[in-house]
């Protein structure tokens, strides 16, 4: 078992390097090339004035391709890390923040790459890989004892429900991260009108589509959590802080969908709601650090 845990960690380390390499490549691809054009102008007084002008051009296509390749390599490594950890613990890797975050990085990369293929845009990668990179740093910062495989405490001993409940949460958070990335790029695009960034309409659509995946998944998280709570605690809803934080997040995205589909909100207003929604996701994700209640496990208290 110990060797599998070590193998899982080495795969995570390799995946972290791939994420870093992918992030650099996506940055090079997205920010484009800057050319400084200089011109000497003759004034009426007979003097010359040197004028400089920065011109932006699309980034290297090869950098984008390498970024995608590294991101796929990262997915494979993180996936192997998750598989080895699952094999070592005989359950899904969801019992503490180390395992949860490891699985989150894997799913985030995978969901992003699916969006990249579907929409054929790579520029989102610069934001999504920043989040993935930050998550890798967070995982590295966790105390080393969390890398050990511990037995589940009795409250968590429900493998089927834990697997689907937590997996749904990871999937939902990952899609919301993609919608956040789309919202950021949207706001840049409408303010700077960058020609080689994806069109504002496409970014707006990516944000919406990601939420249409994440919103039902978060509903599923709440429902499966309720079913589990019913089996373990005798009540399907206990107003536990983690439950209510997830409900708050769900309501924020509910506002986004209602304002968009029924009030016709598009563009900047919708993008700001997405930014706020992702802040709620982060609040819920890291809630274990400051929430009490029945979700106060995960190795952080």
């Amino acid at each position, binding site marked *: 078992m110990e060797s599998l845990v070590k193998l899982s960690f080495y795969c995570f380390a390799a995946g972290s390097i791939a994420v870093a390499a992918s992030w650099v490549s996506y940055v090079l691809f997205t920010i484009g090339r800057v050319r400084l054009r200089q011109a000497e102008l003759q004034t009426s007084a007979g003097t010359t004035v040197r004028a400089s002008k920065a011109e932006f051009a699309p980034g290297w296509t090869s950098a984008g391709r390498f970024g995608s390749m590294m991101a796929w390599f990262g997915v494979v490594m993180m996936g192997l890390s998750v598989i080895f950890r699952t094999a070592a613990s005989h359950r899904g890797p969801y019992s503490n923040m180390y395992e949860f975050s490891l699985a989150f990085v894997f799913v985030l990369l995978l969901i992003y790459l699916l969006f990249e293929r579907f929409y054929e845009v790579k520029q989102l990668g610069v934001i999504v890989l920043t989040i993935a990179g930050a998550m890798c740093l967070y995982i590295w910062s966790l105390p080393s004892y969390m890398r050990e495989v*511990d*037995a589940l*405490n*009795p*409250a968590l*001993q*429900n493998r089927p429900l834990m697997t689907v409940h937590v997996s749904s949460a990871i999937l939902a958070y990952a899609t919301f991260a993609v919608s956040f990335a789309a919202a950021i790029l949207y706001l840049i695009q409408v303010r700077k009108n960058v020609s080689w960034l994806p*069109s504002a*309409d*496409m970014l*707006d*659509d990516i944000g919406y*589509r990601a939420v*249409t*995946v994440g*919103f*039902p998944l978060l*509903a*599923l998280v709440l*429902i499966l959590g*309720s*079913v*589990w709570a*019913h*089996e*373990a*605690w*005798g*009540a*399907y*809803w206990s*107003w*536990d*802080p983690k439950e*209510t*934080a997830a*409900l*708050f997040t769900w*309501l*924020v995205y*509910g*506002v986004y969908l*209602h*304002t968009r589909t*029924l*009030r*016709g909100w*598009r*563009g900047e207003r919708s993008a700001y709601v997405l930014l706020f929604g992702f802040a709620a996701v982060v609040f819920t994700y890291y*809630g274990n650090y*400051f*929430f*009490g*209640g029945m979700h106060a496990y995960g190795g952080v208290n």
Partner: protein
Amino acid sequence: MAQATVDTRGSRRSPLEMVVDRIWRFFCSVRAAVVEIIILAVLVLLGTLRGSDAPQWLADAIPATQPAVDWLYDWDVFHSLPLMLILGVLCVAIVVCTLNRVPGIWKTIVDPTIRTNRSFLENAELSAAYQSAAAPAAAVGELSESLQKHRYRVLHEERGADIHLYADKNRYAKLGTFPFHLALILILLGGIVGARYGFREMTFVVPEGSVREVGHGTGLSVELIQFIDSWREEGIPSEYRSDLVIWKNGEKVKEGTITVNNPISYDNVTFYQSSYGQAAAFRITDTDGNLLFDDSIPLGQYTAVNNPDAPAGLQQLPQIGSQLNVIGQDQDPQNAPELDDLQLENGQMFLQLRQTADDGSVEILTGVVDPGETIQLGSVNIEYLREKRFTLMQVASNPGIPIFFAASFLLVAGLAVTFYFPHRRIRGIIGPGSDQTGSRVLMAPLARWDWSGQRDFRRIIERIETESRIAVTINERPREHAASRSESAADASE
């Protein structure tokens, strides 16, 4: 003329009708619904923060906020009137809004407006036009065939020399909004039914070898045969297990084992493993030998004043108007030893008998007893049989659960249908060609601000180009110049 007609109708309406109309419109308003959801979200956020240390961090950083933070910690948001009110308003809004949308959505499904106008199509954000060698009727047939291959329903009607076309797919997905919103109401209804017709005992304690009545008119009693806790080497609990027998009106009806996550049920009453603790078995008789008590007293449910860390329990003895308080040994070396003025040795119990006389005066008798020993306190003999353990269960009966599960299914199914089967629509006009031969086809998707919808339309056009070998001109107009009013009008009925 039209203005006069409206005024006349308005003047005929009674004040009651106008009030009802205004209330109806308030509950139909999407803007009001959004505000209601935001208020609910803010209340939920406040309640969430209340369950965390975050507000206190704020108060520590900014002392001026301490009163507000204290107020927040004191306010039980989730059982407060504002939360109940906003949930009630949202429920009514969901019902009214849904009823209001039914006719429009139903019309879109069964009898959509086919007629459109050339101006709308020409000014749409995205449109497509092509010349066909076939006459308009034949061109409509070809186009319909192409669209039907993409699962579109195609409707058309002749208007003069032109044929107006309407095509859509996934029209029944528009109904997905109803199960979703019905589910939200059912979830609240499930909660109300559970609270009204069910019960939940948070601390149902049964010592080993004892039987306890469930109450609440169930006729059920539970006997704990044994409690077992197992631990791993590293000191982590691996399992809490209670072996139970369930009795109904004195008859054994079920036996089984419960662990955390694995409750057992009988007659819609469910027993959940929650915790466990220490108990002490006593046999208490009066001086005449009459049995007053022969059972176990769970410890840890109360705290003793003289040592708050020691496990304590109490038992009423109504036959003699007394209460027996029992305090066990504080076995945790981490606890403050200076508070432990009992200094019990291993296995000993401190007993305190509070006898209330007829005049209301209370006599307190105390003593320490070892396992297997009998002690006389006043008029009673108390035999401490042995140490035992108790199981702490939650017992609940919730008839709202089936409603909740049905609602959950409707909620997820409704969302999936709504989001993953988007209603796509195309409008078109097929008229005679400019030289009166063949026909000219002009069509546009109802997909303003809808990148995916426009992409679907482009894909269909590409297929038509390939299949029919005709050149199609795609027209794009910047959004600020594109027709929004016409499309909004077309959508208004839905």
